[in-house]
């Protein structure tokens, strides 16, 4: 009985380590393909353009509306709290840290994961169940180059560019609230922000956008690839993929906070 229990723990541990190894190996292989110029065939570039269009362009109206609503409310709360606690002098750095470093990339990553992550996970699962992936392999078409890389690159580009857009909308809303709460004119507001923003903030925004975009695509792709060969396995694959993706997003966020606090 006890032996079986120990064996169970050992087997589970080995299985966890094995799946971690496979996931990291897959990520490594994708990264190697990413930096290889031969991966970029005309077919791949066409898929990339379509992916960027569907991931980043078609979402712009909804994204802008959500950024205006959520961004304005949250930035309004931050500004009102700052004025209550007498932090008017630091309002520039508070706004930059909150919107550029933290909220914009994380919110964008959540939105892209919900919208495109699920779509990619389902698409790859369906292709796997329908044997379409095997057909592509039969024709010696590299799945990583043709299917996965365009999605990963579009994820990186989309999350990074939309994060910048989100941060800009939040900062614009911030002006309205500073005008209302602190009677601050535009010139003062913009010079406050320009004084507060540093190169490190831009680097943080870009690196978080890249990291979030990368995992927002690679985890759904990997989950879709490991779908069992039946249609009923597709929702299970999407569910597992999304749980892993959200855990990964939170881990990246926590790690970035830890790195910034050092």
């Amino acid at each position, binding site marked *: 009985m006890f032996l079986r229990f120990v064996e169970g723990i050992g087997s589970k541990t080995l299985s966890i380590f094995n799946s971690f190894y496979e996931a990291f190996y897959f990520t490594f292989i994708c990264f190697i393909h990413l930096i290889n110029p031969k991966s970029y*065939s*005309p*077919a*791949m570039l*066409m898929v990339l353009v379509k992916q960027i269009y569907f991931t980043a362009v078609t979402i712009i109206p909804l994204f802008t509306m959500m950024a205006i609503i959520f961004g304005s409310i949250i930035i309004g709360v931050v500004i009102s709290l700052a004025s209550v606690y007498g932090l008017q002098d630091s309002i520039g750095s508070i706004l930059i840290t909150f919107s550029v470093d933290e909220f914009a990339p994380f919110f964008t990553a959540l939105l892209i994961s919900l919208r495109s992550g699920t779509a990619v996970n389902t698409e790859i699962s369906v292709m796997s169940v329908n044997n379409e992936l095997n057909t592509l392999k039969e*024709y*010696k*078409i*590299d799945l990583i*180059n*043709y299917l996965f890389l365009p999605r990963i690159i579009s994820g990186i580009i989309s999350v990074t560019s939309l994060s910048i857009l989100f941060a800009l909308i939040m900062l614009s809303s911030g002006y309205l609230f500073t005008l209302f709460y602190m009677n601050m004119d535009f010139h003062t507001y913009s010079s406050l922000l320009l004084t507060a923003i540093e190169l490190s903030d831009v680097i943080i925004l870009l690196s978080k956008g890249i990291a979030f975009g990368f995992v927002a695509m690679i985890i759904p792709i990997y989950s879709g690839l490991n779908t069992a060969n039946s249609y009923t396995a597709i929702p299970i694959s999407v569910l597992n993929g999304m749980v892993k993706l959200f855990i990964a997003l939170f881990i990246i966020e926590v790690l970035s906070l830890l790195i910034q606090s050092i």
Partner: protein
Amino acid sequence: MLENIALIKEVHHYKSIVSAEKEAKDYLSKINIENISNNRVIQCSNLEIFYVKLIRALMTDEDNIIIVLPFSITANLTDVKSFIDNIYMLNHKKILILELYTNKSKYEGILCNIVK
């Protein structure tokens, strides 16, 4: 269908989309089915899907193409002569058809080497 066929040349020979699709369209025109160029699989007949698969195989760098039991792939195949003629028209590679002995009569009078 055009995208489907052209993909092989785009990936293996880094051909531009325009020129790969032109080549694919030329193949479809040879057997008078260029009208399916913009169709999806669901809009094509079994025979048209078969020809697309064959053209896709012709686009690869393989020297030989093996067709296994064409009558099972295209269930409603009746006119074998035009089918073989179309294969000849498309062909610039060695094509081998693996067929059941019971279907031998269907190939009578058709110009192709039959090896038992």
